C-alpha cells in the first residue's frame, strides 16, 4: 500500500467513523475530540516536526480564537462560519505578535519562552472576565448552524472529520511545496539554511502563522463542540498533550501525528475509571517511548524497516532518512 492509498483509506475511515459510532454518543463524542486533536496535532507537527520549534503557547492561541469566536457570535450576532475565520486570523496575528521575539531564538530556548507566553495568556484569560468570564468559563456555547439548523450529533462529528481531513491534507500539501522544503532545511540546520539563502526568521514567522491558524480553527470548533470553555481548557497542559501526540507518533511525517493522536487523545476519556493511575500509566508510556524509540512510533517502524533493508543495497529514501534522523536543532 503506498502513501496515496493509505491517505485515501484513512480519510474514508475518518469520514465513515461518525456514522459507525452513531449508536454510542459517548464514543462518538470521544471521536469528535480526537478529530479536533488531530487537526491540532497536524498543525503542531508543521512547526515541531518540519521547522523544529516546539510551541507551548499553542493552546493559548486556540483559546484566544475560541473566546473571540464566542464574543463575535454572542455579542455581535455573527454566524459561526463568519466568526471562526475572523477569530482565527485575528488570533494567528496575535500569536505571531507574541511569538515574534522568541522566533529569533533557537530550538529549546524558543520552547521555554513559549511556555512563559502560555502562562501569560492563561493569566490573561482569568484577568479579563469581561470577555472570558474568568475561571468560571463560558458555558452553553451554541453549536454552529447550517442554514438555520444547528449542527448536532452525527453531523457535527462528520463536520469535524471533514475539518480534520482537510487539515491533514493541507499539511501534507504544504510540506512538499517550496515553502515546506525551506521548513525542512531550517529544521535540519538553520545556520546552513541561512547560508543557503533562506530567510530563517521570515520562514519561521510564516510557519508560525500557519500553525496558529490550525490552533485557532481547532479552538473555535472545540468551543462549540464541547459547549464549554474556561482558561483551563487552553492551558499549557493542553499544549503539552497535543505536542505529546506528535512526539509520540513520530514528528516530521504526516502519518506520525495521526498515529500518536489516535492512541493518546482518547486515553483520558476512556480511562476515567482508572483515576490517578492513568497519569502514572501515560507517564510511564512517555518515558518508555522516549528512551526506546526516540523518533516516535512511526519513526521506529521506519527505522526498523530500513535496517531490514540495509542488507540489500542502500536505497534509503530521503523521507525515511528524515524521519529516522528528524532532528530539531
Amino acid at each position, binding site marked *: 500500500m503506498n502513501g496515496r492509498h493509505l491517505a485515501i483509506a484513512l480519510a474514508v475511515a475518518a469520514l465513515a467513523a461518525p456514522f459507525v459510532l452513531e449508536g454510542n454518543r459517548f464514543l462518538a463524542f470521544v471521536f469528535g475530540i480526537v478529530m479536533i486533536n488531530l487537526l491540532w496535532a497536524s498543525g503542531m507537527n508543521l512547526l515541531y516536526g518540519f521547522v523544529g520549534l516546539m510551541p507551548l503557547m499553542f493552546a493559548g492561541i486556540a483559546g484566544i480564537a475560541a473566546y473571540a469566536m464566542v464574543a463575535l457570535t454572542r455579542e455581535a450576532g455573527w454566524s459561526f462560519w463568519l466568526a471562526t475565520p475572523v477569530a482565527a486570523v485575528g488570533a494567528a496575528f496575535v500569536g505571531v505578535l507574541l511569538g515574534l521575539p522568541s522566533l529569533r531564538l533557537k530550538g529549546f530556548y524558543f520552547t521555554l519562552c513559549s511556555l512563559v507566553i502560555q502562562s501569560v495568556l492563561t493569566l490573561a484569560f482569568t484577568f479579563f472576565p469581561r470577555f472570558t468570564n*474568568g*475561571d*468560571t468559563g463560558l458555558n452553553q456555547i451554541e453549536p454552529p448552524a447550517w442554514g438555520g439548523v444547528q449542527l448536532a450529533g452525527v453531523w457535527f462529528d462528520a463536520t469535524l472529520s471533514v475539518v480534520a481531513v482537510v487539515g491533514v491534507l493541507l499539511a501534507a500539501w504544504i510540506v512538499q511545496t517550496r515553502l515546506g522544503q525551506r521548513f525542512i532545511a531550517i529544521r535540519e540546520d538553520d545556520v546552513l539554511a541561512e547560508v543557503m539563502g533562506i530567510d530563517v526568521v521570515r520562514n519561521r514567522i510564516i510557519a508560525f502563522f500557519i500553525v496558529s491558524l490550525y490552533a485557532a480553527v481547532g479552538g473555535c470548533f472545540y468551543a462549540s463542540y464541547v459547549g464549554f470553555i474556561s482558561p483551563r481548557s487552553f492551558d499549557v497542559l493542553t499544549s503539552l498533550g497535543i505536542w505529546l501526540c506528535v512526539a509520540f507518533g513520530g514528528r516530521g511525517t504526516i502519518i506520525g501525528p495521526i498515529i500518536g493522536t489516535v492512541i493518546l487523545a482518547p486515553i483520558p476519556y476512556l480511562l476515567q475509571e482508572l483515576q490517578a493511575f492513568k497519569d502514572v500509566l501515560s507517564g510511564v508510556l512517555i518515558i518508555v517511548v522516549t528512551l526506546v524509540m526516540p523518533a516516535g512510533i512511526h519513526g521506529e517502524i521506519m527505522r526498523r524497516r530500513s535496517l531490514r533493508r540495509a542488507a540489500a543495497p542502500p536505497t534509503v529514501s530521503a523521507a525515511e532518512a528524515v524521519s529516522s534522523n528528524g532532528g530539531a536543532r
Partner: protein
Amino acid sequence: MKQIIEMNRAASGRALPVATLAAVCLASGLASGLASPVARAQAGAPIKIGFNTELTGPWTFFGNSCVAGLKMASEEINKAGGVLGRPLEFVVVDNQTSPTQAVAASRNLDVNDKVVALSGPTNSDTALAIYGYAEQQKLPYLVPVAAFPQLTKPGTRYTFRIEPNAAGWGYSLARFLEERKPGARVAMMYSDAALMRAVVAGFKYQAPRSKLNIVADILFPQGSSDATVQAAQVRAANPDYVILMGAGAFDNVLNNQLIDLGVKPEQMIHPFAMTTMIFGWGQRSAGAIYGTFFDHGLDGLTREGKDFITRFDAANSRPPSYVENYCYNTPYIFKEALALAGSADREKLREAFTRLKTREVTSGIPIAFDKNGARKEYIYFMQIVSVDGKRTYKSRQIHYAEWDADDIPVYELVK
C-alpha cells in the same frame, strides 16, 4: 490494571511498538467495558446514578472527601433495603477537575451507564460544565457542593443544588457583621476564583445597606504565595474585621501572615471553612469566626448526624465538614426523591425534586428546591474555641441565618 502493567513490562522487550499499541488498545477496551459495578446482593437491578467528581487534579482532596461521605450513606441505604426495592448504585467517575473531561464523563454516564441522574461535582467549573450537559440532555442533576450562583439561574429546569449560593454567603456575612458591630470597618483579602468573586459580590451589595465601611479590598491572582505586604497595608488601614478567603494553601498564608503582623484572631472572618483549613490555621487562630453549613460543633445535630460524625472521624481521622456532609446527604436526598417519583424515570425524578420536602439527615435543616432548583438558603457562623493539632478542634455556634435566594439580585451580581 495488573494486565496493563504486565503489558508494559513486555513492552520493553523486542516487539515494542506492537506491544505498546496492544497495551493501549487493551487498556482502553478494558476501561470502556469496566463500568465498575460493585454488585450488591439485592433483588432488582440497581438504580444507577452518575457521580462525576474530582478524584485527580487541583480538587483531588474535595472530590475524594466527598466520595468518602457518599459511600457511607449509600452503604447504609442499601443495607436498609435500598429504594423502590432496588439497590442504589453510584457510578463514580473522575473528571480530573477538568470541565472538558466532566462533559465527556457526563456523556459516558448518560450513554454507557444509562444513569437516571447525575451528581458529584465539588467544584464550580466542573459543576457548570456538567450543568450545560444535563440541561441540554434533560438529565436530572443534583449538585452536592458548588456554590456558584449561575447553577440555578432563572430558567434552570434539571439542576438542583444543595449548597447555598456564594453571593448569599457574602450577603449574610454583611448582615451578621452589622449586628455584631454597627458601622464596622472591614478589610477584604481574597484569591481570584469564581467562588471568592461571588462571595465578595454579595458582600459588597449588602455592605452599604448594612452601613459597613470597606477599608481595603485586595484581590490575589491564583498561584500567589506571599501576602506580607498586603497584610501590612491591611493592618495600616486599622479595620475592625478582616474577611479572608485564599485558594488552597494560600488561605493559610493569609491567615498566618495577618496574625504574624498582629491582627487578632477575633477580628478574622473566614466566609467558609473546612476541617483541614481549620487545622491549617491552628491553635493560634482560636477566637476566629468562620461560616459553614455543617460542623461537628453545631447545636442542633440529629442522632444520625452525631453518628455520622463519629463514624467518619473513626474512618478518616478527622471530623467531617460541610463538603462530606452534603455528599453524605446526597444519597438520602436521591432516596427520598426516587421514592416520591415512584420509579427510576428521569422526567419523574425531576418532577419529584421540585416537590421534595425533606430535611438533612444530619442537622435537620429543611431541604426544598425553588423553581430554579435553588434551596432555601442558610448559614452558620462558628467561632473556633481550640484546635488540637491535626486531629480535632472545638468550635461553638454563634449565629444562624436563613434567607430567600430572591432577597438579593444574585444573578445580576454574578454573571
